C-alpha cells in the first residue's frame, strides 16, 4: 500500500520533470494530457521537426518493468523529421530513431527492448561509409496502425507499414509490410496465422 503510493508519487514527479524539460527546451513538441514517464528517458530532438505525442501515453524504462532488460527509453528525431504517437500507446525500453517519418497509431503496445528505426545509419556503398557521406544513407517512413502489439526484443526496420490490429511475435525482425489482422513472427518475419474475432 505504502510502496504503491510512494512509487506513484515518484512517477508523477518524474513525469513532471521530463514534461517541463521538454517544454522549455523544445518548443516544437506537443505533448498530450496524462502521459506517464517511468524511469530514465533520453531525448535528442532537432528544432526543425514536428513531434506530436498523444494523450495517456506511457514511456517506461525497461529497468522498471521486471522483464530482464536494462535499457532506458531513447528517442531521437533528426532535422526535418516527423514523429507522431497516437493516444493510449505504451512503450517499454523502446529505442526510436527518426530521420524521416514515424507514425504510431492509437492503443499500440510495444514490448521490452523493441527498436523502431526508419534509417540504415550507414550508406550501403563502402565508399560512402568510409567518407561518412550522410546524403547516401537510405531511409523510408515507418507507419504503424492502431491496436498493434509488438513483442519483446523485436525490431521494426525502415519502410515498413503495419496494419491495424496486427501482432508481431517476440524477437522478430520486420522489414516487409504486414497487413491488418495478422500474426507475424521470426527473423525475417513471416506470416503465422490470421486473427479471428
Amino acid at each position: 500500500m505504502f510502496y504503491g503510493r510512494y512509487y506513484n508519487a515518484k512517477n508523477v514527479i518524474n513525469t513532471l520533470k521530463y514534461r517541463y524539460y521538454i517544454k522549455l527546451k523544445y518548443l516544437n513538441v506537443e505533448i498530450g494530457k496524462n502521459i506517464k514517464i517511468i524511469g530514465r528517458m533520453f531525448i535528442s530532438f532537432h528544432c526543425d521537426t514536428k513531434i506530436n505525442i498523444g494523450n495517456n501515453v506511457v514511456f517506461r524504462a525497461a529497468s522498471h518493468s521486471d522483464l530482464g532488460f536494462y535499457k532506458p527509453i531513447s528517442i531521437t528525431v533528426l532535422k526535418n523529421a516527423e514523429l507522431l504517437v497516437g493516444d493510449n500507446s505504451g512503450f517499454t525500453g523502446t529505442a526510436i530513431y527518426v530521420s524521416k517519418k514515424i507514425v504510431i497509431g492509437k492503443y499500440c503496445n510495444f514490448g521490452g527492448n523493441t527498436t523502431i528505426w526508419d534509417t540504415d545509419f550507414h550508406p550501403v556503398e563502402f565508399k560512402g561509409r568510409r567518407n561518412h557521406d550522410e546524403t547516401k544513407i537510405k531511409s523510408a517512413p515507418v507507419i504503424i496502425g492502431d491496436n498493434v502489439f509488438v513483442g519483446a526484443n523485436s525490431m521494426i526496420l525502415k519502410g515498413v507499414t503495419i496494419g491495424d490490429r496486427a501482432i508481431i511475435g517476440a524477437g522478430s525482425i520486420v522489414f516487409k509490410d504486414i497487413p491488418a489482422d495478422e500474426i507475424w513472427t521470426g527473423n525475417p518475419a513471416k506470416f503465422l496465422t490470421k486473427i479471428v474475432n
Partner: protein
Amino acid sequence: MRAKYYRIKSIINTFIYICFIGLRYPNVILGKNLKIFGKLYLSIQKTSVVNIGNNIIFRSATKYNYVGINKPVTISASNNALLSIGDNSGFSGVSIYCSNKILIGQYVNCGGNVFIWDTDFHPLEFEARKFNDITKIKSAPIIIGDDVFIGANSIILKGVTIGNRAIIGAGSVISKDVPEDEIWAGNPARFLRKCT
C-alpha cells in the same frame, strides 16, 4: 553545448582507460586516436596478443549512441588468443570473446549490441559438459574483412569469414561464410542481394 561536454568527458575517459590498459595489460597494443565513450570491460590473459588500430571508437551506453545500446563494450581474450582490430573501425555496445583468433579489418562499422564469439563456450558432448572439460570446447577463427557493415543485434559465430565490403542485416545470426560485396540477413543468415 552537450556535444562539447561529451567530447571533453570522452577525452578524459579515454585517457584513464589508456593508462589503465598500459599498466594492467602490457600485451595490448593500442593505436593512436582511440575514443572510448562510457565503460569498457576488458578481461585479457597475459599470453594473448591484442592489437587495436588507429582511430577506433568504442561506444557503450544509450546516451552516447541513440540506436538503443543496452550493454557496454566487452573485450575478452583467452590464453594464446589473437585479436586484431584494424584502423578506423567503430563499435557500439559490441561484445568480443576471443579464445582462438579474431581478425577485424579496416573501416568496419559494428552496429549496436553485436556479439562476436569464436567459440561454443561449452562442449557439445553432455558428459564433457558435466565435468567442464575445457579441452573439448570447439572454436574456430573469425575473419572479418575491410569495409564490412554489421547491423545491430546480430551474432557472429565461430569459424565465419566475412568478405570485404559485405553487409549484414540487423538481427541476423551468421554461422556460414559471407562472400565479398553481398548483403546477408535473417536467422540463419541468407543471401539477400548484391551490393551495387
